């Protein structure tokens, strides 16, 4: 009993934290609530980090829930990223919360609820559980997007997101129903067993169900043609929420996508890959188009996050074509994207604390003179996002393209490289703005603060993850991270 409880302890801590925050929301100040939220998240983070690599695959409360809820290294790695993402979001934006008057205690509870949802999603071994988890996370994020309720843009973004999100959410449950109809179970292992003994007629139903589920996942990832909400919602949401969505929520979708692809549809992957390839091509090109035409940095990053989904989809379709490297490549890419995107959005919201402007390319002219350290870090994140060598982003892309070539999708890898070139345009434009133009303002005295320090640490990790080795204990470098990614994927494959 207690052993079972211990297994779900990290998620339990997060959800308990959310309730505690709700209780305290009227009595505590924002600062204290923020710390309480960080405390609960850190507690969960620490338990997970101690557990990573030590547990064998097991299920929580199997007598009651069956095999709904799985615990393996794969899901623990995702939990780590979710909690870390939330912690970073909260800590970097400490000042931002105070500068806006619409924040209150429930905000932190919502963040914790959505982290809880994502964690369940990563652990779910069953489609209905996955659906519920996805909805818990999504609903919290809907609310977060519209948190500035007196702002038209924010509310509009929330409405758009919610309408489209509910519509695609319906597809998920519809797909689940189809699959249940064919298989008689929604458990992933049962489905896998069914699919591996093919009786052609019924597979059609499974495939159609799979397509529907996939549409939901692709929608949340922001793959073209399901991407149209991305730019508007990222733009409308408050900065901290955009950061949270781009860095953390996006990753959660890959947790379920990877689990589905690796366990479930292995024998259907040939059909899958073709469909995925079409979507990948559309996503890469469409995302580039979106990013290249934007004037505001936030919208540019939103567009480029679509392109990054495209890169991961390249590897995703390689999984089915027999590339061993592909799944770890996605994991590694997720880590690299997480660090770089959280950093870039973190800087944006950090700057936005002091001003209420839109933050366009123009606003960054001469930024290096005003805030030399911050702009150096921004440059590092931009380099990493564009995949510049010696940053973690380069290795991420390198593994992705390797897996694509390994699985024979050379044209797709070529397209990926071309879009990476195009991405240099919109990322380096920002660097050029920061460094090659004189500043219009005077240099301000910049205070040293904790948020800046955190961003600095992340910039260091981006570099260290690109060149580093195991020289510094407890901080994995480039080769350490890929080993972690492989370990997680191994635990996933061991289930079958």
């Amino acid at each position: 009993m207690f052993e079972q409880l211990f297994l779900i302890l990290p998620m339990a801590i997060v959800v308990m934290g959310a309730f505690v925050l709700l209780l305290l929301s009227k009595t505590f100040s924002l600062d204290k609530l923020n710390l309480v939220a960080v405390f609960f998240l850190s507690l969960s983070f620490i338990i997970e980090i101690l557990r990573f690599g030590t547990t064998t695959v097991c299920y929580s409360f199997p007598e009651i829930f069956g095999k709904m809820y799985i615990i393996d290294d794969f899901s623990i790695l995702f939990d780590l990223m979710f909690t870390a993402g939330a912690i970073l979001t909260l800590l970097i934006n400490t000042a931002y919360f105070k500068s806006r008057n619409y924040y209150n205690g429930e905000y932190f509870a919502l963040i914790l609820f959505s982290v809880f949802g994502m964690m369940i999603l990563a652990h779910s071994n069953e489609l209905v559980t996955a659906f519920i988890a996805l909805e818990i996370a999504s609903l919290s994020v809907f609310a977060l997007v519209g948190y500035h309720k007196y702002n038209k843009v924010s509310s509009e973004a929330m409405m758009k997101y919610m309408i489209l999100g509910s519509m695609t959410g319906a597809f998920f449950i519809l797909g689940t129903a189809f699959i249940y109809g064919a298989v008689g179970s929604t458990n992933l292992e049962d489905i896998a067993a069914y699919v591996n003994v093919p009786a052609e007629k019924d597979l059609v139903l499974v495939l159609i169900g799979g397509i529907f589920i996939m549409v939901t996942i692709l929608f949340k990832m922001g793959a073209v043609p399901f991407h149209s909400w991305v730019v508007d919602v990222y733009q409308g949401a408050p900065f901290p929420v955009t950061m949270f969505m781009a860095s953390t929520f996006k990753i959660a979708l890959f947790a379920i996508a990877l689990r589905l692809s690796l366990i479930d549809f292995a024998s259907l992957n040939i059909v899958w890959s073709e469909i995925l390839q079409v979507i990948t091509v559309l996503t890469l090109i469409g995302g580039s188009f979106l990013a290249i035409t934007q004037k505001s940095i936030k919208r540019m990053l939103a567009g480029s996050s679509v392109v990054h989904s495209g890169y991961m989809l390249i590897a995703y379709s390689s999984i089915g074509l027999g590339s061993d490297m592909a799944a770890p490549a996605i994991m590694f890419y997720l880590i690299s994207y997480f660090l770089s995107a959280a950093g870039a959005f973190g800087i944006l919201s950090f700057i936005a604390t002091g001003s209420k402007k839109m933050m366009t390319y123009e606003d960054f002219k001469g930024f290096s003179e005003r805030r030399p350290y911050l702009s150096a870090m921004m440059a590092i994140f931009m380099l990493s996002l564009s995949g510049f060598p010696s940053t973690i982003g380069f290795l991420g892309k390198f593994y992705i393209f390797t897996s694509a070539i390994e699985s024979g999708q050379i044209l797709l890898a070529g397209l990926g490289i071309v879009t990476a070139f195009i991405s240099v345009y919109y990322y380096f434009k920002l660097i050029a703005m920061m460094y090659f133009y004189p500043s219009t303002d005077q240099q301000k005295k910049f205070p040293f603060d904790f948020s800046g320090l955190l961003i600095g640490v992340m910039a260091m990790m981006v570099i260290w993850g690109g060149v580093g080795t195991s020289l510094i204990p407890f901080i994995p470098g480039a080769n350490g991270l890929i080993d972690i990614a492989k370990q997680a994927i191994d635990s996933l494959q061991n289930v079958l």
Partner: protein
Amino acid sequence: MSSLLIWIVLIPFASAALLGFLHLLLPKQRSLHALYTVSGIAAPFISALMSLAVGWELFNSSDDMMIHAIAFNWITLGDLSVNVAFMADRLTAVMLFFITFIGTLIHIYAAGYMKEEEGYGKFFSFFNLFMGSMLLLVLSDNPIMMFVGWELVGLSSYLLIGFYHQESANMKAANKAFILNRVGDFGFIIGLALLFTALEGTGYTFEAIEANITTLDSSLVAVIAMLLFVGAMGKSAQIPLYVWLPDAMAGPTPVSALIHAATMVTAGVYMVARFAFLYNEVPQVGVYIATIGAVSALFAALIASYQSDIKKILAYSTMSQLGYMFIAVGLGAYSSGIFHVFTHAFFKALLFMGAGAVIIALHHEQNIFKMGGLKKKLPLVYVTMFIATLAISGIPPFAGFFSKDAILAAAFASEHYMIWGMGTLTAMLTAFYMFRLLFIVFFAEGKMDGKLNPLPRTMTWPLVVLALGSTTVGFLGLNEAYGGTNIFSSFIALPDLSHHLSHKSEYLLGMLNVLMAVMGMGLAYRLYAKSAEEPQVNNVWRRAVVNKFYIDEIYDTVIVRTLRHLSVFTDKIIDQKGVDGILHVAVSGYKSAGAAFAFLQNGKVRYYALYILSGLSVLSLLLLNALGGM
């Protein structure tokens, strides 16, 4: 024991980082000088102690003993697995010994020489970096790590040659050194890559390569050997990539001493000796190397005889001595070559440090014809310089005699008489130009008035130590003909190609060498001992030699200008008109496509829902298509 190897390399690097950091943080703080001195000198000193321990361990074990240390795995990609790993065999031990020992002395000397300088901390940081790089180069256990050290040596020499960066001439010299080294490195890396591909993943450490070298096609090995030697040409300043070496005198004198004695230029010779197994497969390449060496030796000696800048004379003499070393390693007499590297390190360091002492004493005067009569004023420098000059000229029993004699004997024995003849002629010229320098600076009437700068003790004591070394280390290589057992070459145990030579002919050759040296000495005495006037440049020959055969000018016209014209052409025509033109078309097309795509992004939810549904429909169609084919 094996972890010592890591520390030998790590300590200089760590000290370099520490000093560099401190200097960056507190650039003007003079009170840190004591710390800079202590840390700067302690790092090579500790490395020297540890190197001695390693050497002792190797001395007491069998001659194929190797010490390995693997720090961590750096890259694993398919067949390519590179460990950051170190390896010490006896060759390494010899290199380690003189690099750290002489390096330490030069560091001590530099503490005196540089004490008034602004960038004292920076200097020691670069100096330690240089040491660390060189140690990395000789200790590496695979060619990749060696290449890393090789490049770092190039970088740190660039930093140090351009140390007085306020003057653009010095930066030009630094750039020249760096770029010419890059040319060599280009050959080197291609050679390494070719070797890697040829080995087909049978391991890429020196040991593994040695084990598999016989399986390779010998014409391919010849190409690889040539390409690797191109790298050596750059680093060790052989024709045609030598022109950086004299210009590198722009750096402070301790830097010259370090580059010429303990580090950089010996890297090429070491590399060839390290790849001895490879060069033994293709002796015809070796002969080519030896020929390049002989021509370089003679050529440099000729130029040195007409120079008037004290450091440039020494620079050309280094190039000439390196030529000897390449004669040796080219003809398969690796241990003789390394022995000459070893003895040369002592007397060349001594010569540079002596020259540096003279320069400091005379308030930064470098023209020898403006010096003179320093015998009485700088007795210690005079005596030690005299010893070094005797050593480099090959007068027994000083160190240079034994090593040079061994090389010339090897050339004679391998029946390459042309190379031998050039070597012997160079020996005479060496004695001539070195004694020319000595006589003009110390004997001829003085032309300088005024007080000399006092020399700090840190600048004089290393001279004494090195003078002792220059006198004695030659006996380590005393061969059988002279009644020794050649401790050096039996210790170092390199795969020499041996040619037998009778004792009688060895005596004859030795006597001939001494005779040549004495002739050169006599000539120098007759011309310069009493009074020294700067010679008139009054005929074609002299003008050609004084201007270093116009090689710099020829390079400038043939290579530099042609490249520049080509660059301008590429820039103005190909790039701006051609490439940019095509790109502009592509970019504008892309931008308008982007704008069209953004038009779809109209902010209306009903349209967005429509996109999603149409996407779903297309997916369904694809699925139908796929299922139809099933």
